[in-house]
């Protein structure tokens, strides 16, 4: 029987054993449902609260100098701070109504009152959210009076902002031509963004267009970390079970530790990746509306980073998995195993912790050095390829992948030796001296 067939036998068994576990099925399919239920619990009250505030907020205005010239209720319109590109993308994705709903809370209506007493009576009767008095000396002093209920009021500043916009509009409209008026009121209507490559080529380069360049490495890092952490849990559990159930000698009498370790990594790693794939699929199914948004924003897909993501992910996954399994198997129980393997979890998380530095200087010294370190190579290379592929030489990619593959091979060998020592040691955790001695014997 070939070595690969042994690995396949172990991998098939471990995969099927893992995916048939009730705990696995609950986590795989239950987690998204739980998250959805949790979301609903949070979202439903928020929806009703938002629905309640959707009715326009009516403010009274006592305009003594007649600056606004209000003849009746005036809808001050929406006050959106959302970027232009984002608005366009949301509208292209058919989310215009959702945007309107989301922004409806900023809708103010100003109702004219001829004197303070009327406005005062209306506020006291709570027919108004508040009222403003524009005094006779407003043009000279720029001061106005604001009256609000003696209760908690969060929309006060927004209403002042809306009144301020309205005042600016009315003041300018009466004094300059419409074009000038439009520019004074909104100096930048929209921005056309362009990106210039190192060869001088000009491309569409809106901030939304480059969002994928930023998101891809971030998603890669998070997914990688989740995969490593989750799979390490399965690996630890599997090894602890074998020690507990005393099947170790039967296994070692059928396959060598390298084959068992590789089979476990593939089988349990596959189960872990399947779980993440299920979650991602569910997430993507619920977020399909994002696709037209990305298309409309003419997003710049970093194809090189996407192509490199798979080989780097798999290799780095095997690298960390081998080390974690080997180290973890030295523990005498599940808790101790997890503690021992923790050092690798922290190492795997290092690029994410240094994300700010890496994004600021994706081709700086730190990023270049980290591209050659097996523990950090995968996420850093993906980040650099995603940011600007032209700054990443082919030999850097090949070298980095080569180092990672070599380190994975060494990691699996070391992991397999530790694994053998861990499996054969019963009771107390082996000492460092014993580990070195056994490793020499296994060589």
């Amino acid at each position, binding site marked *: *029987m070939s070595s690969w067939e042994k690995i396949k036998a172990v991998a098939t068994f471990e995969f099927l054993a893992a995916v048939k576990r009730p705990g696995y099925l609950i986590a795989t399919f239950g987690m998204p449902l739980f998250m959805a239920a949790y979301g609903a619990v949070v979202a439903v009250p928020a929806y009703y609260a938002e629905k309640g505030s959707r009715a326009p907020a009516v403010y009274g205005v006592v305009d003594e100098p007649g600056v606004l010239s209000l003849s009746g209720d005036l809808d001050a319109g929406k006050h959106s701070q959302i970027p232009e590109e984002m608005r366009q993308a949301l509208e292209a994705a058919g989310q215009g109504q959702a945007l309107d709903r989301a922004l409806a809370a900023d809708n103010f209506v100003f109702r004219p009152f001829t004197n303070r007493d009327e406005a005062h009576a209306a506020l006291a009767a709570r027919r108004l959210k508040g009222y403003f008095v524009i005094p006779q000396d407003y043009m000279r002093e720029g001061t106005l009076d604001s009256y609000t209920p003696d209760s908690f009021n969060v929309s006060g500043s927004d209403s002042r902002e809306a009144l301020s916009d309205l005042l600016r509009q009315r003041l300018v409209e009466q004094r300059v031509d419409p074009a000038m008026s439009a520019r004074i009121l909104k100096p930048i209507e929209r921005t056309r963004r362009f990106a210039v490559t190192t060869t001088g080529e000009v491309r569409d380069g809106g901030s939304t267009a480059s969002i994928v360049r930023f998101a891809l490495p971030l998603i890669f890092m998070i997914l990688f970390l989740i995969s490593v952490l989750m799979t390490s849990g399965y690996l630890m559990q599997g090894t602890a079970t074998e020690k507990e159930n005393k099947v170790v000698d039967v296994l070692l009498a059928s396959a060598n530790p390298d084959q068992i370790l590789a089979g476990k990594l593939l089988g349990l790693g596959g189960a872990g990746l399947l779980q993440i794939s299920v979650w991602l699929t569910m997430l993507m199914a619920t977020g399909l509306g994002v696709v037209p948004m990305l298309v409309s924003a003419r997003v710049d897909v970093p194809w090189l980073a996407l192509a490199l993501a798979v080989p780097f992910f798999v290799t780095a996954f095997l690298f960390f998995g081998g080390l974690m399994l080997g180290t973890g198997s030295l523990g005498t129980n599940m808790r101790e195993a997890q503690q021992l393997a923790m050092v690798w979890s922290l190492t795997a998380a290092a690029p994410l912790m240094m994300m700010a530095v890496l994004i600021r200087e994706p081709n700086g010294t730190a990023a270049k050095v980290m591209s050659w370190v097996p523990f950090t190579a995968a996420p850093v290379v993906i980040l650099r390829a995603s940011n600007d592929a032209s700054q990443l030489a082919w030999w850097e990619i090949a070298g980095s992948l080569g180092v990672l593959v070599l380190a994975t091979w060494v990691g699996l060998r070391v992991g397999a030796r530790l694994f053998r020592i861990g499996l054969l040691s019963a009771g107390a955790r082996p000492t460092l001296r014993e580990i070195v001695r056994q490793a020499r014997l*296994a060589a």
Partner: protein
Amino acid sequence: MSTPVVIFDGIEKAYGQTVALRGVSFDVNAGEIFGLLGPNGAGKSTLIRILMDIIRADKGRVLVFGEPRRRDHLDRLGYLPEERGLYTKLAVIDVMTYFGSLKGLSRPEAKRRSLAWLEKVELPHVATWKVDRLSKGMSQKVQIASILLSDPEVCVLDEPTTGLDPVNVQMVQDLLVERRRNGRTTILSTHHMNQVEELCDRVALINQGRLMVYGGVHEVRRRYSLPEILVHARGSLPQVPAVSRITDQGEGSWKILLSEGTPPHEVLAALVAAGASVDRFEPLLAPMEDIFVRVVKEGRA
């Protein structure tokens, strides 16, 4: 002449300051049931683990099927360890299929053989049971079936009948005899000396890491026996020469200790000539139990 399928040649092994094996050498022949005997901690399990390549010897070599030990020999070897178990949360058939597939069987073939072996050990109904539902005896039989289903050419069974009732002990013994009939080799590590006498062709007894006794069971028993004969006769037993002592065991049975160098047939002839009516006459062989105890005690002394 029998061909050795396993040769231990000068095996030495130490765990730190503790010496487990001191130059152990012996052969196991094809198609025999070989008894590997010794008290607890004698080094048997270490020797077996070296054979299965679970641990490495410090010195010496192991030849399997006439070649130096290689990893790919594992598919032709089977091993039921003394400290054993099954995956408790899985179905019996899944565990058996896995063990079969690790020995080179395809999954469908491993499953087919697993079902056949469950029939053979009279447990066809437990195929879909979770292992933790099995009784101790059931679990024991499933473990044995899991190891034997790949029909290994050489199989090491460490205390295979511990915890089994007499009926199931007999079943396991029958399986071993069947293996021998089919030309398969079994190395049986056991403390049940009656099983050794009943089943084994040859034995090796290890004590404190040293090989103390090695050879055919009959030959070993004869080697350790006193020159004694058991005689069943009607009436009284006449006095004959070349006899050191006669012990009356009652009901017409006597144990006769011969003088040094006296062949038993001469005593029989003398008894008959003296008018004894002999119904049964057999040289007495030392029980393996006595040999074991004697060798171990001598080692301690």
